[in-house]
């Protein structure tokens, strides 16, 4: 009798466990199916769940509001409070804030003012080391005119990726360095087109055959980003016994330190090879030109304000 009872209990437990395991798998499949069938609805739910957390984090870590400043710099504020008895401390504080705002202003001006095409300035509120995937989160979304697949720039001409997802108030930037992303690049120096693959953390890797003169400092251009200088080769890994060598390229500003970016207003479109060559040539001309004041420049055409420091450009 006792044996029968134990056996029944064990069977019941096993049945219950199997049922629960099935239930877990069914729930998982239903969620994944919903994401496939109703991507916009699931995206909206995800936005409602995740955005407040990201916004709060950014507010706490980067905002200049009183509360986060207090939480961040509590010890400094306690020390400053003692010194507030002196007028000088208060004035220093104001000067510091003004300097901070001036620096921020300059960064924004350089992002928007020098851009040749229409751009949307955006603050970075999430960076690769802070986010689950190797992406960037910006504080501009569809309500600000951001569209999917629009290029994203870290400076006036430095392309870093494109808009992967757009939400009403935020957008996720897929970086050219995101693992699994491959892009066609042109490398000045050896003057070759090759494929770069994302390594994460703001690094892309190109692999080319041995014998090609790949060197640190070679400029890397991504023609798909139209005005897109990506960065320069910072390191070359070349083992003579291997048939290929690797070059690693990085941005001049580490991705983890980006505070502002600008977003193109139009989505990227597929580029044919002829257009890619035009982009590469345009970047080459930019590299060779120096802006010279009109009074200083001696030019027989008399219309140009820039001079070329090299007589010819190499055919590509």
């Amino acid at each position: 009798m006792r044996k029968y009872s134990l056996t029944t209990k064990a069977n019941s437990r096993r049945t219950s466990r199997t049922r629960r395991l099935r239930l877990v798998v069914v729930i998982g499949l239903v969620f994944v199916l919903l994401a496939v069938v109703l991507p916009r609805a699931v995206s909206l739910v995800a936005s409602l769940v995740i955005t407040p957390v990201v916004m709060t984090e950014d507010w706490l870590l980067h905002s200049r509001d009183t509360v986060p400043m207090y939480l961040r710099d509590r010890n400094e504020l306690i020390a400053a409070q003692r010194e507030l008895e002196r007028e000088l401390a208060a004035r220093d504080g104001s000067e510091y804030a003004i300097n901070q705002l001036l620096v921020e202003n300059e960064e924004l001006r350089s992002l928007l003012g020098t851009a040749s095409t229409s751009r949307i300035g955006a603050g970075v509120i999430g960076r690769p080391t802070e986010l689950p995937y190797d992406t960037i989160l910006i504080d501009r979304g569809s309500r600000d005119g951001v569209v999917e697949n629009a290029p994203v720039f870290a400076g006036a001409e430095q392309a870093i990726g494109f808009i992967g997802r757009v939400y009403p108030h935020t957008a996720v930037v897929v970086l050219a360095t995101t693992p699994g992303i491959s892009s066609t690049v042109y490398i000045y120096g050896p003057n070759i087109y090759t494929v770069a693959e994302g390594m994460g953390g703001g690094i892309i890797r190109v692999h080319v055959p041995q014998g090609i003169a790949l060197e640190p400092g070679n400029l890397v251009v991504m023609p798909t980003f139209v005005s897109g200088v990506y960065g320069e080769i910072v390191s070359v890994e070349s083992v003579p016994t291997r048939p290929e060598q690797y070059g690693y390229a990085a941005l001049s500003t580490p991705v983890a330190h980006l505070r502002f970016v600008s977003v193109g207003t139009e989505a990227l479109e597929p580029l044919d090879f002829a257009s890619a060559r035009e982009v590469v040539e345009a970047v080459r001309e930019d590299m060779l030109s120096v802006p010279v004041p009109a009074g200083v420049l001696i030019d027989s055409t008399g219309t140009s304000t820039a001079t070329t420091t090299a007589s010819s450009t190499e055919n590509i």
Partner: protein
Amino acid sequence: MMRFTATIIAICLSVLVSPWLLLPVACLHALAWFAWELILIGLCVDVYFGAASGLPYYTLAAIVLVSAAEWIKPQLLFYARD
């Protein structure tokens, strides 16, 4: 209420910390309750951030974790109530 609070904590950790720090918290959560909400959180993270990712890693990890927790629960002494 405990479960709701734990879910909010899991949501925050899923965005704010490394997945390796999130894992033990998610394990505890899955052992304490039948944690279907972890799968939903995983899906939200994948949908929100995983634009360039081929696989929904967080969702798959959550399904595996919750399944493993449901499988192991009867083996644990404090769940084996007669």
